């Protein structure tokens, strides 16, 4: 929009009908161009709130591969577009400045974190899993019962994991012989 001296609000006031300069005459350029970012988003995807178990459907608005807004999905028969403060804050959850984005590693007896790249960290964990499993393997237990397991590796999962994730976790640990696989569901 090209601005000319004629756009000076005082002149717009004088041209009427907004003589008092309260309405149309006072509008700024930004105001005229105002568009909600829910409208300018590149795409909207359906999601579900990660907090409690009510299962409120969310709509996630994405612009330039960034989440620009998360709000309730009015289509949902569960929440009818509504969200609680936590659900309403879920963009803040995704974009919080405290969000961890790199691996942090604490060596034995260390007093501070150090950085690791993802590949190295994965290799280290895989090594430790194999070793702990070997070191603690039981084919039979102390009562001579066949158990073929390890009691050296335990896991405790939150209940915000997906079903597919839980499925793979249990599948892998079971094949590994690890049985102390637990979840928030016990808590």
């Amino acid at each position: 929009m090209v601005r000319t001296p004629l756009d000076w609000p005082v002149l717009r006031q004088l041209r009427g009908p907004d003589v008092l300069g309260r309405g149309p005459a006072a509008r700024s350029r930004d105001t005229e161009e105002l568009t909600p970012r829910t409208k300018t988003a590149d795409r909207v995807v359906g999601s579900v709130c990660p907090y409690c178990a009510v299962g409120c459907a969310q709509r996630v608005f994405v612009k330039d591969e960034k989440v620009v807004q998360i709000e309730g999905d009015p289509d949902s028969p569960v929440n009818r577009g509504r969200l609680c403060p936590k659900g309403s804050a879920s963009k803040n959850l995704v974009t919080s400045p405290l969000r961890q984005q790199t691996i942090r590693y604490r060596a034995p007896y260390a007093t501070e974190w150090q950085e690791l790249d993802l590949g190295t960290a994965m290799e280290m964990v895989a090594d430790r899993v194999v070793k702990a499993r070997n070191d603690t393997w039981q084919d039979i237990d102390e009562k001579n019962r066949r158990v073929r397991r390890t009691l050296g590796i335990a896991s405790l999962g939150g209940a915000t994991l997906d079903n597919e994730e839980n499925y793979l976790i249990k599948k892998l640990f079971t094949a590994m012989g690890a049985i102390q696989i637990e979840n928030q569901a016990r808590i």
Partner: protein
Amino acid sequence: MSDDQLRAAQRGQRLQDAVTSRHRGSPGGRRDGSVVPDAEFTSYYGRPVVKPSPWEADIPAYLFSGGLAAGSSLLAAGADLTGRPALRRASRFSALGALGFSMVALVHDLGRPARFLNMLRTAKLTSPMSVGTWILSGYGPFAGLAAAAEVVDALPGPLRRRWPLRLVSRLGRPAGLVAAVMAPPVASYTAVLLADTATPSWHEAYRELPFVFTSSAAAASGGMGMLAAPVAETGPARRLALGGAVVELLAERRMERSMGITAEPLHQGKAGRLMRASRWLTIGGAAGSLLAGRSRTAAVLSGAALLAGSACTRFGVFEAGQASAKDPRYTVVPQRERLDRGEPVRWS
């Protein structure tokens, strides 16, 4: 955990008591002496209902210097017309100086000083600040021109006769007269500026506050004249100062009587101290002005007293308003009383 947080929490407790007081039938207590008997009222944890202005000392300083500028322009014009060049010169300079100071104060107080010119984006009759800005925009150049003429006149002859400067010099009187005509609104609009708010002790003062401010402006500018001009020429300044001081004292008293409980803040705390100082300085300055015709010392002292008194008035009124906004009592009680009388403010 900061002390602020603790204080806030303790306040919460005290104020929770305040909230429940109505239900328990005990009066909401006052913390310090007050003129009006305790009125029972309810609030939300003692939190203010309205917000105090975000303005700091800049604004009362601006109110004062605007008034001083206006009065000085009037004095300068009178001096010009009645042949008192020294008084004219001093007054024109003080007008410009005060104006300049007020502008700096005003801009400094903005949240976005760089956007000062947005003040001229619209002309809003409903906004005393907009109206005032346009008045100042009209008054300022003429007051400036009048002061410029004094500068030119003080230059060596040959320089003074160069054409643009000569024009400036020629325009000194008309500019000064125009400035003088525009000056009174400069002094009085600031009262509307404060009164046109929800700040209890400002709004309730709206009937008399313009008189307090203009008379205070008269006293200040008269005092300035006494301070800055030779005794021989300061007769009108003394009279203006004396008249201004007397009217200010009377108008202020009348104002308080019209304000109900919202007059209380004018007597309490910082505002109370300022208002008391204002009163004594103004009385002293006025008394001194009676002697100032004979003694340069007396003129200087009483002029300074009047200036200080006027400044204290503006700061006092300003602080009283701020205090009234921070105490829910001054917002709630008058409104509640109105409702309890069955007289809510309604259109029909």
